[in-house]
């Protein structure tokens, strides 16, 4: 049973436009959420995170929004660049001393020039 769901396996966006990647979760105990980016033949790299006490966190072109009541978060990339083309993973944890991350299946983003 997937506790973290990324329902769109792929997304294609034009360069310069906004990319919106979505993630839903079922475990109400999750209180820390992360987005990782993965290029082929490389391990995932950390992108941005958000604690459940916030509803938005911004870092340059990347913004993560959290809607706790809907158990939904999204990653916005504005403006999208061809170098953003990668697989994006949403992950969640219960914080505290539990550092086991529960991962979604990923969304493959293609940014077209």
């Amino acid at each position: 049973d997937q506790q973290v769901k990324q329902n769109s396996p792929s997304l294609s966006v034009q360069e310069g436009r906004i990319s919106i990647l979505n993630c839903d979760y079922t475990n109400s105990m999750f209180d820390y959420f992360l987005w990782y980016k993965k290029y082929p033949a490389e391990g995932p790299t950390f992108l941005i995170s958000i604690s459940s006490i916030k509803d938005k966190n911004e870092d340059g072109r990347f913004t993560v929004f959290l809607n706790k009541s809907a158990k939904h978060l999204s990653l916005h990339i504005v403006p999208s660049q061809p170098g953003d083309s990668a697989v994006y993973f949403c992950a969640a944890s219960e914080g505290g001393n539990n550092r086991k991350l529960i991962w979604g299946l990923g969304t493959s983003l293609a940014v077209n020039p």
Partner: protein
Amino acid sequence: GAGVSQSPSNKVTEKGKDVELRCDPISGHTALYWYRQRLGQGLEFLIYFQGNSAPDKSGLPSDRFSAERTGESVSTLTIQRTQQEDSAVYLCASSPGASGGITDTQYFGPGTRLTVL
């Protein structure tokens, strides 16, 4: 500085053989994780080491899987009597292990692609 490294990058083995995968974490990182990613699946937690504490082995799928870590350095993941369903990319990550209950950023290695024929 050097990131997390893993070896070998690729391993092809025959069903029933034992394999050993190696992870060199970032120097000074006290926490180390092993994950696996099967084709078309998300990352699956296997085991977590934090300093000298007993490892969290709750993600190991069977007793054929084991892992060791020497102090706060190298870790090896051993799979005995490999089966075809063990075919996956095995990823290692390390993190600083900061206190305060805040989830550390995990830094991943490039993974070992294991193929069991």
